């Protein structure tokens, strides 16, 4: 499943997780990494934050609040996804129903993993980020092709996305397939390597 399904728009209310530096251990604790599947991790997303000791929902956790039910967009504090390279983090979020994460800063490896799986990782300016953090529950419409977030009042936030990631999201491009097509160039490169050795 290295090609994800095409994603052109995300239309949803937001849930706000204002904490900075939400790390991959918070998103999916390491004890759930013994799975050998990509699916089924949603029930453990944010496990130690989301549930109380008795296993019931933590009412304080933003995504457990009634208003956040059915939200597909998380607005998160700065430096979301820092820590490990575990792709289980975006897998868990997607399986939990999240299709976009917005922050002012998103960790490199997490962001790359997210975009490869059709989880839209959006970086916005600090001022726009602050505004989004202060307005939980608003309805956003993220347009991948246009690189824009439409606000309820008709305003718009622009975001950067490199062309290739945009193309892959919109078309569900299979990146492994793309690499396999480079076989001639790779073979030529390897030949040069061996001659140099």
């Amino acid at each position: 499943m290295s090609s994800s399904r095409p994603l052109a728009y995300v239309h949803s209310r937001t849930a706000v997780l204002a904490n900075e530096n939400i790390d991959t251990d918070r998103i999916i604790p390491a004890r759930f990494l013994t799975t050998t599947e990509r699916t089924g991790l949603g029930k453990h997303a944010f496990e130690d934050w989301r549930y109380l000791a008795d296993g019931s929902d933590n009412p304080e956790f933003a995504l457990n609040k009634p208003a956040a039910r059915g939200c597909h967009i998380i607005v998160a504090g700065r430096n979301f996804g820092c820590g490990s390279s575990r792709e289980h983090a975006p897998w868990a979020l997607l399986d939990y129903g999240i299709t976009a994460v917005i922050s002012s800063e998103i960790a490199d490896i997490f962001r790359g993993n997210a975009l490869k799986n059709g989880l839209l990782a959006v970086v916005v300016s600090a001022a726009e980020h602050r505004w989004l953090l202060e307005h939980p529950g608003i309805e956003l419409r993220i347009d991948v092709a246009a690189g824009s977030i439409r606000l309820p009042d008709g305003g718009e936030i622009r975001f950067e996305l490199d062309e290739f990631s945009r193309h892959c999201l919109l078309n569900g491009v299979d990146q492994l397939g793309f690499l396999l097509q480079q076989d001639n160039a790779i073979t030529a490169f390897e030949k040069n390597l061996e001659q140099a050795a």
Partner: protein
Amino acid sequence: MSARTLLDKLWDAHQVVAETAATPGVLYIDLHLVHEVTSPQAFDELRSRGLTVRRRDRTLATLDHSTPTLPADADGRRPYYTPEAESQVAKLEANVAEFGVDLLGWDSPDRGIVHVAGPEVGATHPGMTIVCGDSHTATHGAFGALAFGIGTTEVGHVLATQCLLQRKPRSLAIHVEGQLQRGVTAKDLILHIIGQIGIGGGTGHVIEYRGSTIRSLSMEERMTVCNMSIEAGARAGLIAPDDTTFSWLEGRQRAPKGAAWDKAVAHWRTLASDEGAKYDQDVHIDASTITPSVTYGTHPGMVVPIAGNVPKAADALEQKALDYMRVTAGKPMTGEHVDVVFVGSCTNARLSDLHAAAGILRGRKVADHVRMLVVPGSEKVRREAEAAGLHEVFLAAGAEWREPGCSMCIAMNGDLARPGQLVVSTSNRNFEGRQGKGARTVLASPLVAAASAVAGVIADPRDYLDQEAAA
């Protein structure tokens, strides 16, 4: 040609197809390290597409994350924490057999944590590109290799094509000058650096560590520094190779031999940033001012000198971190009650780390209320430590001497702390719950860890080193 940085040279040498505005570049990968946690779905992908591993000779697997650190029983059964952990290891064993990949498995004298074992067998060479489905792959940058962590989808890409789609990161030079003081280790240096630049300070960048202090570090110390580059947000850390690098590598089983060695070294000597090369960012650190350091909060950028006080929280979120850690602004970290001490991980489980910890524990006892785990980074480290009698020092002091693995750094294998326990740990992450749900982690050097184990509270190792000097 204009002056190039080490990153420029490594990047240029591995570009199969250059990046354009529309597409990332195709980057060739010289060495792919594999472990049981982040590879099963990638092998499944290959299987479902009928693909093979393109370069088995450039792929090396080991078992480390889910593996128990207690020995097998008389029937050879290993005490896995869960059936899932056992089946994950079995799955890697089956995958390497099916796809023909070398495995440093249970029967190998070279098995160990991927970032300890890889360099040890001489698989890591200067000038290489190295990846692994593990963010601490940055460790290998200590050899002047461009080494970074990747996700499982990319593990599949490399298995199938030996390449990755990448855009070139920016460069950040960290210039370190001045002599490290007694009792101050490479761990204190990197904790200090992360404290200075912050855990997002290296995002989007590759760090090159430079300067006289870095040049004077041993290979093991350089690995400790590069290892935690990701804790500053940088995917990779680099140190230009030099005679320290070459003499450490020479003679290891996967290092070049004979004429090939000489030719390789001649090439490796060119792998330094050119005079006048420009970095996107520069940071200057005075090593002589650094003291033993520990973390006081819930991320690796919350660092304080061990003799200093917990800083005041800047906002409500920082206050939450202090509350989680049960520490108080304005109060010292020394004297905090310790429950568990962990010496191990790809950051600090090499022979020199164990020597450092044993130096303080020799002739002393771990405090009665403290549980101390010492987990060597590899089978080779274990053998060498035992040959030097270090295990006897640990056992006599009341510590547990375990088999190699990631153990309590990631707490996947059952080696974990209980809720609320405070762990002084030589590992790399102090996130909430990292070492067990509700566990509180204080990152520290092996010297601080050993001193704290003896004192039963967070302790300054210089007090113990002073006693030795006086004795």
